[in-house]
């Protein structure tokens, strides 16, 4: 059943909308090369941003063109599997990985393009929200000074 899984994804998004997600505390503890904390943040935002862009494009293409649902499902499943493993692995974004995996589960129940659009839209909202949270951690002003 698609609906109960979709409801879980929406509930997860609402829970992190204005309150810092637990994933963020886990990401803060990560250290990259030479024991510094910058690259885990920069790479995490890059990978969240990538999936958000892909999901938004998949949603738009599915709304605007008569695309083949089984093909869209295969492409999307592959992306979701890849990024769920990325998030839940090194970055410690385990809740995000769980939501993306819920998306994979829901995808198997999608019967129409409208349902597909709804699902990828919900996933895009969640992943984008996580990306914004990570963005808050990055000291862009100081980073900019270093790069001047």
């Amino acid at each position, binding site marked *: 059943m698609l609906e109960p899984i979709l409801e879980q994804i929406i509930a997860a998004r609402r829970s992190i909308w204005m309150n810092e997600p637990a994933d963020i505390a886990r990401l803060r503890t990560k250290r990259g090369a030479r024991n510094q904390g910058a690259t885990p943040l920069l790479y995490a935002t890059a990978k969240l941003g990538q999936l958000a862009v892909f999901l938004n494009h998949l949603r738009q293409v599915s709304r605007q063109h008569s695309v083949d649902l089984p093909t869209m499902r295969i492409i999307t499943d592959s992306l979701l599997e890849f990024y769920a493993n990325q998030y839940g692995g090194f970055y410690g974004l385990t809740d995000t990985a769980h939501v993306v995996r819920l998306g994979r589960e829901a995808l198997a129940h999608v019967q129409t393009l409208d349902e597909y659009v709804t699902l990828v*839209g919900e996933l895009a909202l969640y992943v984008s929200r996580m990306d914004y949270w990570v963005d808050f951690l990055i000291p862009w002003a100081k980073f900019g000074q270093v790069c001047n």
Partner: protein
Amino acid sequence: MGKELTILIGNEECTAEMLNDVAPRMCEIIERALPLEGLLTHAKLVDREVFFQVPFFIDEVENPKWSEKGDLAFWNGRQSLCIFYDDCTPLGYTPTFARVTQNLEGLAREAAEVWEKPGKRILIKAKEKWHARANS
């Protein structure tokens, strides 16, 4: 004249006018979603723009324009409400649904701080008299 919005940011209260005549569908969607609360992020490429994510899409493209100081626009690619708070060079045409009409200076002061301190809260709501009339 379009409906008015109150923008609360930091210690400032500002007013914006919705562009109902040129972006009716966008305004309708925004109006239905009010009040909108968010945490501001500063744009990284455009010099004087802040934005925050909202939990909905606006797929209609209305009033796409080269954003100017005081414009409120919507970037559907990341479901973000964008505020151009001073002179800047935007990246492209953006669907625009409102313009700041009062206290842009205050908004600009608060928004400029977001570059150093991201996550500042913003609230956009229907202006009191409009809200009161709608509920009467």
